[in-house]
Each structure stands twice: as C-alpha cells, then as structure tokens.
C-alpha cells in the first residue's frame, strides 16, 4: 500500500481485488447493454431487416418527406430562439447577483420538471378551440393548435432550459476576470461579449445547441398534444414513427426512427471528438 508513488499519477493508490473489479465492470456492462446498447442497435437492425431498398423506400414516401420537412422547420425556429434566450439567461444569472436570482434559476429550469404532455396541454388550454383565447383566435381566423405555431410553441417550451443549463455552470465557474480586463482596456460591452465571453463557452454552447436540436426534433409528448396528427401537414418525425408503428408498419417506423437516432448519435459524438482533438 505504501508503493503508491510507483503507480501512474491518475491511477488510484488503493484498489479492489481483481475479481471484484471484474465483477463490477461486468455488472455495469450488463446493465448498460440491456438498457442502452441493445435498444440502440435494435433501431438500425429493425430498420434494415428487409433490406436497404425497403429502408430507403420508407424514407422516400411523401408522408415521411413531409415529416422531415416539418421537423427541420420546427427545430430551426425553436433552436434559434432558445440559443438566444439561453445566452441571455445564462449571462444574467451567472455574471450578476440580484434579488430573486434563485427564483429566476428555478423558473428557467421549470419546463424540465413539467411533463411533456402537460406542457402541450398548457398551449391547448390557451389557444385551443375551447381554450381561453380560442373564440378570439377563431374570430380572426388564426390557427395555432393543430398547426405549425402550436408545434413550435410546445417545442420551444420543452427545450427552453437546455442551452441555459449547459452555459450557466460553466459561466459561473469561469468568473468574469477576462471580461473585466477587456472592459478596462477599453473594449465595448458587445465586443467583450463576442470576443471574450463567447469563445470561453464555445464548446458548451455548441453542445447545448446540438442537444437542443436533437431534443427539438425528437419531442413527442408535447407535440403529440398540439399537433392533431394530420398526415402530411402536422406530423413531425416522432409522430410519423408512432403512427407507422401503430399501423404495424414496423420496418418503416424504425426506418424513420433511425434518422432521429442518427441525429442523437451525432449529438453525442461531438463532445467525444472535441475532447479527443483538444487532448492531442
């Protein structure tokens, strides 16, 4: 036990017996296999089990194309808005202290603790045919629920904390010394933000943006409530997957699901690659 200095610096000086170590690694591996690895592989295996032709046909059908277009549109709007909001929220909360700051942090996190179905329901209560503003909206022929605006609003609500959450801990930990130096040297506030603060958080911002994109494209519960499932018009990719699966078109459902899975895998791959590169 006294020979700790002989071990590599990151290694631990005290350790479990070999057998215990192997048993724990095996147990963890079995758990992760059953809940992560097998479900992930299954998506692609089911999608491709009838061959590449059937797979590609499932993605080419008009309903699938319409779902992809709608999903990309919704994600583009939701992510843009939430990145700007995330930056503003993180800047306010991490660089300043003011009364009510903790309440604000709780409010920023609030959508995470609301069930997706309830999130969607909030907008139905507000804008639905029998909602609070329903009569007013139908009088002016504005359609929000069972249409694009409702899907966008529900998606924005659900994904709003993601970017802020990625940025806040990092901005807090980094402090403001560099910003203060830049300001002292005469840089304007905007210049300081763009050339000092943003580069400091660029990887967290990138990861938050990617995660927000993946979640915006994959949101199911909230969108399910406000969409109305109108084929070719208000069906995002996850809803398209649901409908195909319920129609027992399993291969087509998994084919559509594989697109969303690729987005998720790409999102996770970025921090992996970034860390590799910065280490090299």
């Amino acid at each position, binding site marked *: 036990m006294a020979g700790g200095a002989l071990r590599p610096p990151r290694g631990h000086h005290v350790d479990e017996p070999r057998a215990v170590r192997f048993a724990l690694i095996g147990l963890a591996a079995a758990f992760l296999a059953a809940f992560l690895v097998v479900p992930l592989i299954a998506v692609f295996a089911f999608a491709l089990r009838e061959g590449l032709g059937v797979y590609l046909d499932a993605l080419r059908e008009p309903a699938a194309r319409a779902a992809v277009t709608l999903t990309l549109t919704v994600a583009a709007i939701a992510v843009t808005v939430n990145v700007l909001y995330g930056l503003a929220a993180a800047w306010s909360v991490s660089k300043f202290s003011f009364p009510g700051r903790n309440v*604000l942090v709780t409010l920023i996190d609030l959508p995470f603790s609301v*069930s997706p179905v309830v999130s969607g329901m909030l907008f*139905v*209560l507000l804008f639905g045919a029998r909602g609070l503003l329903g009569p007013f909206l139908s009088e002016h022929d504005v359609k929000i629920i069972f249409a694009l605006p409702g899907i966008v609003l529900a998606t924005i609500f659900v994904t709003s904390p993601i970017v802020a959450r990625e940025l806040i801990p990092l901005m807090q930990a980094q402090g403001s010394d560099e910003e203060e130096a830049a300001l002292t040297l005469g840089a304007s506030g905007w210049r300081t933000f763009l050339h000092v603060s943003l580069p400091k958080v660029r990887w967290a911002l990138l990861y938050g943006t990617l995660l927000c994109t993946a979640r915006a494209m994959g949101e*199911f519960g909230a969108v399910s409530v406000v969409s109305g499932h109108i084929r070719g018009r208000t069906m995002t990719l996850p809803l398209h997957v649901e409908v195909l699966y319920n129609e027992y078109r399993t291969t087509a459902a998994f084919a559509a699901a594989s697109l969303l899975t690729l987005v998720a895998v790409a999102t996770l791959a970025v921090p*992996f690659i970034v860390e590799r590169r910065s280490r090299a």
Partner: protein
Amino acid sequence: MRRTLPGLPLALGTTLTYLALIVLIPVSTLFVVSSSMTWARFVEVVTAPRTLAAYRLSFGAAFLAAIVNLVFGVLVAWVLERYRFPFKRLVDGMVDLPFALPTAVAGISLASIYAKDGWIGRWLTPFGVEVAFTRLGVVVALVFVGLPFVVRTVQPVLRDLDPEVEEAAETLGASRFSVVTRILLPGLAVPALTGFVLAFARALGEYGSVIFISGNMPMRSEITPLLIMIQLEQYDYPAATAIALVFLLASFVLLLLVNRLTAAYATPPGARGA
C-alpha cells in the same frame, strides 16, 4: 467588481420577457382553468379510481426506476471513474444517449426487444417474466429515460475525492470494504440523492417511451400523462387540468428538493474570486 459588467438590463429583460411569454402565461392558464371548476368536482376528478390508479402507477414505477438508477448509476459512475477497460470513453459518452434519443424511438425499440419473442424478452419468458405490455415494462422504459442522471451527478464528485483520505484510512488499518462503505459511499450520498430525485422527476412526467411498452390498460398500466391525454382528446379540459395540477405540484416540490440538494454541495456563485 462584478457590478462593472454591462448587459444586465438587456439580458435580464430578454430573459424575463421570454419566461413570461413562454413559461409563466401558459403555466398560469392551468390555474385559471382549474379555478373554473368547483372544489367538489375537482376532488371528484382527482380521487376517481382511474385517476388514483394512474397516480399510483406513475409515482410507483418512477420511484422503482429511480431506485434502479440510483444503484446502477453509482456502480456505472464508479466503474467509469476508477477502472480501466476497453472502449471506456465510448461507454462514457453513451451514457447520455437517453438525453438525446427521442422518447418515441426509445419506446418502440424497448417494446420490440422486451416483447415475449424479442431479443431480450425471449430470455426472460422461460422465467415467467413478462416485460412488454405490463407494469414492469413501464419501469423498464423509465429506467432508460432516467439512466444518465445519477451517473452524471456522482461522476464529478467521485473524480474530485481526495485519494489521500482513502490512503490514510488504509494506513490506519481499515479494510478496503470499510473504506468504500464508510468513507467513499457516504461522500457520494448527496450527489447520488440529487441524481435520484432528478431521475424520479424525469420519469414521473415521461410519456413517449412508456406508451409503446405499457399496454395502456386503464386501472392497470395507464400512466398519468396518458390519462391527461385521453381527457384532452375528449375535450374535458377541466378534468385534464385538475389531474395535471396535482401532478405538477408534486413535480415542483421535487424540483425545489433538487435545488436544495444541489446547493448543499455546489459552489455558490460569487463565492469564487471575490
């Protein structure tokens, strides 16, 4: 010093406006709509047998799943931080998959592999264990969605533990087992509990991954978000709102608990570089 940074009015103004429009106004409609029903009707809806069965399943299954994630989350964090094995970085990255994978995708995939003749289900059937279309299926889906939380709250704390404390205990004659159970694990209790509550809260509201695997039988395998969905489809907004309100208050209490726990071990802002 921090007072000198510019941009507070713009940033805070944007944040507050956004929160008011996107979060506060929609959430407040919940209270407006539920106040339109009488107290007696409210109580009738939230104590109806079907509602109570849904609450029981949602809270019970979310709790069980969070327990599973607590135990295995600490284990996975431990293995990732302490041991060396092939593909470790890849495994580490994969832990976040439930954060990024759409719940509907997870739902159909889990339902397929845990079905009676599925890749994993077929090995469980001989033991009389049925997962898909049972309440156990709900737990399986909720374990998936809550999996990253405990791992990610425990990992950094485990990494920062001072190895000298372990060495000192060992030098003083403590066995490895008592070092782990009496020194290491107690130090991980608060982050593990934080992760547990986060996983519980996340599982509570989950919809997409559950509905494909649960079978959705009223009174048996119908989760609360699904019941809310059914009420909405029948245009019974007040009933949906009442069920959601009770549910939401529970989630909010959990969120406050998380913030308390996090404050117990995180560095408070302003404590640095003062």
